[in-house]
């Protein structure tokens, strides 16, 4: 347990030190990249809650990135720039949508659940495309970034530290959650659903709650992401984006708190590297993902420590 804290402390220290270092050597691009990775890591952490710990293969998680981003964009469109409002609406709207989708989907399982979550996300994607006022297919440019007290999101370094803090907070929240009573029931239902029912746990309410929490957290990530890219398109909600986040979770190692963060860093750095070589990097990434699934089971976190008991 202590060794884990030490590792986290080291990682945090590194991340804190990164911006001044990178700026000193004239590589501001990597500050932005790392910031993007940390924001998506929040999305991965939220997915890990329901996927890694809950066993729910939700292929539609990117929907909440889209909702969060559009919350910022749409509020800005109508002249509201208060960051607090942005984040609140992003989280709230995501939670509500997650509640609606989850209520219908969680009654199913297995293949059905995967297809249904995918379908609902696609539905939101089409909704996003068809509303011409907010840019439709082309998306919309953010008029202004969210305005926060004490922080200027237009300063890349300040934004970076905000992302870092929020990422650490989400990891902390999830780690508390999965060891709480609620979390244990969720994990039990994943481990052996029949047994869980036999001792009196009905999976549905716990799974639904987890789904909503994960959606809300991912909505926050979406609001941050919208601010980061300054440009909001329905493509944020595409299922390839969902697949990417899933891969971060798997790559990093499911059912571990650090896994999704490691996975996000690994996947996105790797994508960045590959895309520097060739614009057709996906033709390499694709088979690599296939191979990693077939052969590489425990994920990167397994290298560092044993999974949670």
């Amino acid at each position: 347990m202590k060794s884990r804290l030490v590792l986290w402390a080291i990682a945090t220290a590194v991340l804190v030190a990164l911006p001044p270092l990178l700026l000193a050597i004239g590589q501001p691009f990597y500050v932005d990249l790392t910031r993007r990775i940390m924001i998506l890591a929040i999305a991965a952490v939220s997915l890990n809650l329901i996927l890694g710990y809950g066993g729910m293969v939700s292929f539609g998680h990117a929907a909440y990135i889209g909702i969060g981003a559009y919350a910022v964009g749409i509020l800005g469109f109508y002249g509201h720039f208060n960051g607090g409002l942005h984040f609140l609406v992003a989280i709230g709207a995501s939670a509500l949508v997650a509640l609606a989708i989850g209520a219908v989907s969680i009654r199913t399982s297995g293949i059905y659940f995967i297809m249904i979550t995918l379908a609902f996300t696609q539905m939101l994607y089409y909704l996003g495309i068809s509303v011409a006022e907010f840019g439709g297919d082309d998306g919309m440019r953010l008029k202004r970034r969210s305005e926060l007290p004490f922080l200027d999101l237009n300063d890349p370094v300040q934004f970076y530290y905000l992302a870092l803090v929020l990422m650490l907070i989400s990891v902390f929240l999830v780690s508390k959650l999965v060891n709480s009573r609620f979390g244990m029931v969720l994990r039990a239902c994943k481990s052996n659903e029949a047994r869980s029912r036999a001792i009196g746990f009905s999976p549905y309410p716990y799974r639904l709650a987890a789904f909503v929490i994960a959606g809300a957290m991912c909505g926050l990530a979406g609001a941050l992401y919208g601010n980061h890219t300054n440009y909001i398109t329905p493509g944020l909600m595409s299922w390839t984006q969902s697949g990417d986040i899933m891969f971060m979770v798997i790559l990093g190692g499911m059912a571990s708190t650090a896994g999704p963060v490691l996975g996000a860093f690994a996947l996105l750095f790797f994508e960045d590297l590959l895309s520097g070589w060739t614009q057709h990097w996906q033709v390499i990434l694709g088979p690599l993902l296939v191979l990693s699934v077939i052969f590489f089971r425990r994920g990167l976190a397994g290298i560092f420590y044993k999974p949670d008991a």
Partner: protein
Amino acid sequence: MTWQLVFEQLLNGLQSGVTLFLMAAGLTLVLGIMNVVNLAHGSLYMVGAYLALAAARWTGSYALGLALGVGGALVVGMIVEVVVLRALYERDHLDQVLATFGLILFFNELIAILWGRAALFASPPAWLRGHIDLFTGSRYPSYRMAIIAVGLATAVLLWYVVTRTRLGMLIRAGATNRGMVAALGVNIRLLNTVVFGFGAALAGLAGILSGPIYNVQPGMGELVLIQVFVVIVIGGIGSIRGALAGAVIVGVVDTLGRAFLKPLMATVISAPAAENAGPALASILVYLLMAAVLAFRPQGLFPARGG
């Protein structure tokens, strides 16, 4: 909004439906029998379309292009089954989803490398470029009518194979109890490859037929695939009957919705509001339908078990 127009859109819906059916039939069998989630099914749709287009240009003959396209999809499908899917049968659905997702990335990019990212132009064969006269007095594109015919013929063929042949019997047995079929000494590996290849061929056919109507471009398969998922959820996994029913329902609802929802809504609410709300609602109509089916009959309209 005349009756002729409605009928025409109905036919369009039917045409879109049978295209979905061709894809759904293969996928529902793979899901039902082999219990494998295969996201790359859309890639086979795309492969069929591209191979047929390339072959037709090369040989100058549409028919030859069609044959090579379907054959090519069949071969690619079987290769995918042997190389990738076999390693995934025993794994959980998550692994299958991710691995086949990797395949999608691979195929999309491969096609982009070979033929570029821009949409290609595919045209129907010369002898199908005309119109035929409907009993309603209006005219309807021959090509679309041909698609409907091919689709329905395939449905009949599939019905025959599944209910009247030994292969079909094995398929149905596999859909209800995979382990038992294997235990009975049936070469389950060969059966799997055959079923998968067959499904791939159907998907390829769907891609080829759709080429002239929709876009031929990388990523075309995924757009259709999700609709196919909706079809299967509505119709029930593992059931060909369900796939047909679901496909026709989805095709018709989607087409009619896109054509008539905006004008219908404009009669009830203001025109500018309908301008936005109409297309928005139309685009999500089938998903709402899916949600409704799930709420009342989560196993679909014609589930395989018991059939």
